[in-house]
């Protein structure tokens, strides 16, 4: 799919992204790059602009300004043709937070994945698609019993596996995971994190991991950007940012993670101190 003349070290490049709702700047001059097969965390709290950024990347929201390129293809404007829309879908796919809302309740797992395959590989015949479907189910650890089931028969973790298989069915360059493990129990969350790490290792898909959970981000990403009020306040290697945060907001986020020596009173104080100049 990547047909550019020179090898591109960048799978996804975002520059100067802006989006305003009314007089509220939801995303303000956001930029980052994701190398092929890399994993970038986008960290922030509600209202930080992380979900709006993700939605602009997949095309659910149109940016007011800025550029988004995947392998050099610009995608900030709206797609004009069906072919262009499909091509874009093969660039970036997205897995959402709530696996209870992201699947059609009337369509079996098998059919919902097959639908994506028919769209993106129309040349494949029935046996070809069946083979690919079996491969996808195997990758996400689902059996034939789950394949024949409707989403309501599945647990949250199983549904999220289905959502991941659907996203992978389009063979995307970049997978956006928007709080994709946030709604799962920890024991299941660890299963999905494991699965995602394996898929990235084996297939070289780039991840954009949108999350509020720094501990999860530490284990699944190489690089991270920290968003606050629509702007990037800090970015760098995940390990560096988390062990030696430069911005007071990043420090506040890290301190806020419950654990040994957790001091809610001090966190509240720091939070107020940080908010004060803007109030």
């Amino acid at each position, binding site marked *: 799919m990547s047909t550019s003349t020179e090898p591109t070290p960048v799978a996804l490049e975002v520059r100067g992204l802006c989006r305003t709702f009314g007089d509220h700047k939801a995303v303000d001059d956001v930029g980052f790059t994701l190398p092929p097969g890399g994993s970038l965390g986008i960290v922030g*709290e*509600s209202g930080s602009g992380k979900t709006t950024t993700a939605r602009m990347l997949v095309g659910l929201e149109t940016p007011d300004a800025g550029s988004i390129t995947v392998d050099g293809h610009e995608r900030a404007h709206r797609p004009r043709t069906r072919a262009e829309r499909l091509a874009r879908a093969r660039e970036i796919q997205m897995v959402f937070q709530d696996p209870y809302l992201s699947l059609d309740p009337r369509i079996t797992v098998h059919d919902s994945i097959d639908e994506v395959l028919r769209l993106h590989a129309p040349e494949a015949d029935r046996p070809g698609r069946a083979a690919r479907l079996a491969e996808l189910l195997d990758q996400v650890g689902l059996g034939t019993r789950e394949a024949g089931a409707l989403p309501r028969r599945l*647990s*949250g*973790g*199983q549904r999220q596996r289905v959502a991941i298989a659907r996203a992978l069915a389009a063979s995307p360059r970049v997978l956006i995971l928007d709080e994709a493990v946030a709604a799962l*129990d*920890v*024991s*299941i*969350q*660890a*299963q999905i*994190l*494991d699965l995602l*790490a394996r898929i990235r290792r084996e297939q070289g898909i780039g991840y954009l991991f949108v999350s*509020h*959970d*720094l*501990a*999860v981000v*530490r*284990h699944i990403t190489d690089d991270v950007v920290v968003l606050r009020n629509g702007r990037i306040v800090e970015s760098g290697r995940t*390990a560096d940012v*988390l*062990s030696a945060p430069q911005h007071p907001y990043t420090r*506040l*986020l*890290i*301190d*806020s*993670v*419950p*654990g*040994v020596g*957790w001091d*809610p*009173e001090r*966190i*509240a104080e720091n*939070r107020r101190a940080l908010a004060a100049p803007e109030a």
Partner: protein
Amino acid sequence: MFDKTTAGDTEARPATSGTDTAGRDVPLLDIAGLTLRLPDHAAARPILDGVDLRVDRGETVGLVGESGSGKSVACRTVLGLLPKGARAEGTVRVEGTDVLAMGAAGLRDVRRNKVAMVFQDPRASVNPMRRVGDFLTEGLRVRGVPKEQALARAQELLTEVGIRDPHGALRRFPHQFSGGMLQRVVIAAALSGDPALLLADEPTTALDVTTQAEVVGILRRLQHRHGTGMLFVTHDLELAAAICDRIYVMYAGRIVESQPVADLFARPRHPYTAALLASTPRLEADAAAPQPIPGRPVSLAEAPPGCAFAARCAFAIERCRSEAPALVSDGPAAVACLRADEGILQ
């Protein structure tokens, strides 16, 4: 202390009272042998199975488990709220009186004066059509506090939970508050009756991390000041560790382990607790990657004959699959594992 005339009183109450109420020596909350069964067609196993749990005055007790473990159901029984059609065995004593045996008047007294609850989603706990002032004074007015006094008390409570402009806040509607601010309002309302026991069911799960810290800080401060006992229900072991004195771990409707916090983290005794700790992602630079627990929690449709965790347990032997382990106490700890004495977790 439940005297109506003291409703406007915010003076400190000793953290470990236990002298000023009828039940001097009885625990604040004492759940014993609580089993809840749904009608046979609805579930293959009891949703709660022989639960024993205690909360003392001024104590913070964590009830930790994954979704479907029964932790929220257990919490709600304290208010006499049972799932539809459920049959209960055992006792749920609040200050010595069994909630399950109470009539409507008794339950009303418990809910009004003794036990308050804060739920996960603050938006679901308030009437969106009513002003925050109405919400906060409703309980006080029902207790017979005059309107002006109730409003003054509501304003005080809002100040206590850190709402700026408490006077203006009384006139505002729930949608004009953020989730974190609204949860503070809900906490203020819960504390308005000066309860002896606060039930907190995932009160910070829907909030941002920095907001969570602030809300937990408020809960702890108020609890300290008023000597309130708290049962804190959560799926988050780390959060429970940060604020609780003791923790109960639940799996498939049973308590599988309970220990004081430091011991639970240093030396978990049940393989499920150990696995849960290992599966939690950690922030520290040298932390190992989270280890998944294979399989999935037991659904209500399944009734394994032995230990409910056996199918996912790395240490399970044949006996674990046929024989259900009893919860065995050992000093301040208790564990329900057939192999607990074998040192399998070392």
